[in-house]
């Protein structure tokens, strides 16, 4: 294995070919970095602009007073309340069903017709546009059930809309748990159910919570489906209304409504202020998702993820 004696002397200095490759490498890094950075810039610019437009509207009375029909000075208190109320109702329906379906698909269902059909149905449901889902809700809850515009009808429509995404989130969260942990639990004589409840779900809780809170942000900002189901007004004499069979306009719907239908003179103030509140809320959900996910992971696994 002797090295050829007359090999040309080699140096450590970069030659033309190496320099070209290094230039391409540097250029690629720069372009990719710039693309990534532009996302931050876009978000920051968007937030700054929204604050510029709506910031002056944010007063205590605006955040707590009920909206006005014709005169200036209306607030968005009931809308903020309704947004949370419908969100909580929706999560109460969505989370149990979606997590159960996700556990079934990921942990129980063997590859076969039934699993394929469930999976296909979930994916098809996920592609239904929210406005179409809203019309469906209108047909079922408003007309067929004779409920009229209700918080419950809105929440059930949003459940249909978000179920597939949460099933997916559950499946992915469970799929990230290594099989070696399932094997370890079963190898110690655990039943399948014990393995799922004591090992798989606790290991997946961080991802699961993050997914749920992100979907909560989507529910909070959903508009089209609610216009047809929860309505565009709040209960007149009782603005903070817990009755699920009463109409319940949410903040996102209010943003649309003020800009397109409203006859109050201070439309811009109310519309921009509402939009800013909505944006802040959704951002809070996104940041909150990360914090809560990390906390739960630490709580259930004794370790920061």
């Amino acid at each position, binding site marked *: 294995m002797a090295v050829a004696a007359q090999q040309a002397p080699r140096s450590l200095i970069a030659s033309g070919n190496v320099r070209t490759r290094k230039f391409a490498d540097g250029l690629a890094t720069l372009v990719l970095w710039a693309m990534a950075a532009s996302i931050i810039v876009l978000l920051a610019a968007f937030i700054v602009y929204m604050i510029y437009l709506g910031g002056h509207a944010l007063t205590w009375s605006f955040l707590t007073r009920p909206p006005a029909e014709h005169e200036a000075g209306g607030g968005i208190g009931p809308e903020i309340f309704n947004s949370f109320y419908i969100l909580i109702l929706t999560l109460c329906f969505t989370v149990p069903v979606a997590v159960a379906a996700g556990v079934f698909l990921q942990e129980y269902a*063997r590859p076969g017709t039934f699993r394929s059909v469930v999976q296909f149905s979930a994916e098809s449901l996920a592609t239904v546009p929210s406005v179409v889902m809203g019309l469906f809700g209108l047909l079922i809850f408003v007309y067929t059930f004779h409920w009229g515009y209700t918080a419950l009808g809105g929440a059930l429509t949003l459940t249909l809309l978000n179920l597939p995404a949460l099933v997916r989130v559950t499946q992915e969260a469970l799929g990230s748990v*290594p099989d*070696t*942990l*399932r*094997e*370890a*639990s*079963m*190898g*110690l*004589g*655990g*039943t399948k159910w*014990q393995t799922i409840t*004591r*090992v798989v779900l*606790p*290991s997946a809780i961080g991802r699961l919570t993050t997914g749920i809170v992100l979907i909560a942000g989507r529910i909070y900002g959903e508009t089209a489906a609610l216009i047809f189901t929860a309505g565009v007004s709040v209960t007149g004499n009782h603005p903070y209304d817990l009755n699920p069979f009463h109409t319940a306009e949410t903040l996102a719907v209010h943003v649309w409504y003020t800009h397109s239908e409203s006859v109050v003179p201070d439309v811009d103030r109310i519309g921009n202020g509402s939009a800013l509140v909505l944006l802040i809320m959704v951002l809070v959900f996104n940041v909150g998702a990360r914090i809560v996910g990390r906390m739960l992971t630490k709580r*259930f*696994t*004794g*370790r920061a993820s």
Partner: protein
Amino acid sequence: MIESPAQTAAPIQDKIVADDVDVFYGSFQAIKSATLAMKAQHVTALIGPSGCGKSTFLRALNRMHDLTPGARVTGEVLLDGENIYGADADPVVIRHRIGMVFQRPNPFPKTIYENVVYGPRIHGENNKRKLEEIAERALRQAALWDEVKDRLSRSALDLSGGQQQRLCIARAVALDPEVILMDEPASALDPIATSKIEDLIGQLTEKFTVVIVTHSMQQAARISDYTAFFHLGEIVEVGPTNQIFTHPKEKRTEDYITGRFG
């Protein structure tokens, strides 16, 4: 050192006996008519080249193949004379009596303490005092107590690989099983961690019957009392370890242990 089985006075009982065991993955037959008696409170090593079926055979001894879609086991595996594949035999009970330690350390992402008491808990032990006693005893048996006694509430994932594997052994031991199956328990560990695990296996035979799969013939020679040589899904030869390594009867065994293939 472990004394040679031939010098032991009382006759050694068979703890777990595989009788004419076949294992299939779909239509592929991974184990062909394997028959092997594993002695109580001794270490039986299963050796052989990669893909020879030694791990597959091991997993047949506590019905882990039940979890693999498409896997099928025929024949009998007798634990104290009772067939674990019998109609009434329950995998949950079987795996309580026959524990398993896997190739890669697989502690749960829980605290050290919660890992050790996981087995007793799922089998219904809820008494805090008892669980603490079990945890200490199991960690001592796994030679890990002194290293972790001050940080039982820390995550098991913060331990080193070797410590994690001993934790997995403690987790298996905490159930007070009769047999412990080990699937190349040291193959992912460095030499120092490996030697700790090997010392530990010797001590475990005071209470338990150990069956260990290893790809290292030196390891088999160091720690086992009996050795079974697997090749192409068959058990080629079984015997006391020193005999297998010094006077193998079969040509294939001799070829393997002298390094002619493997």
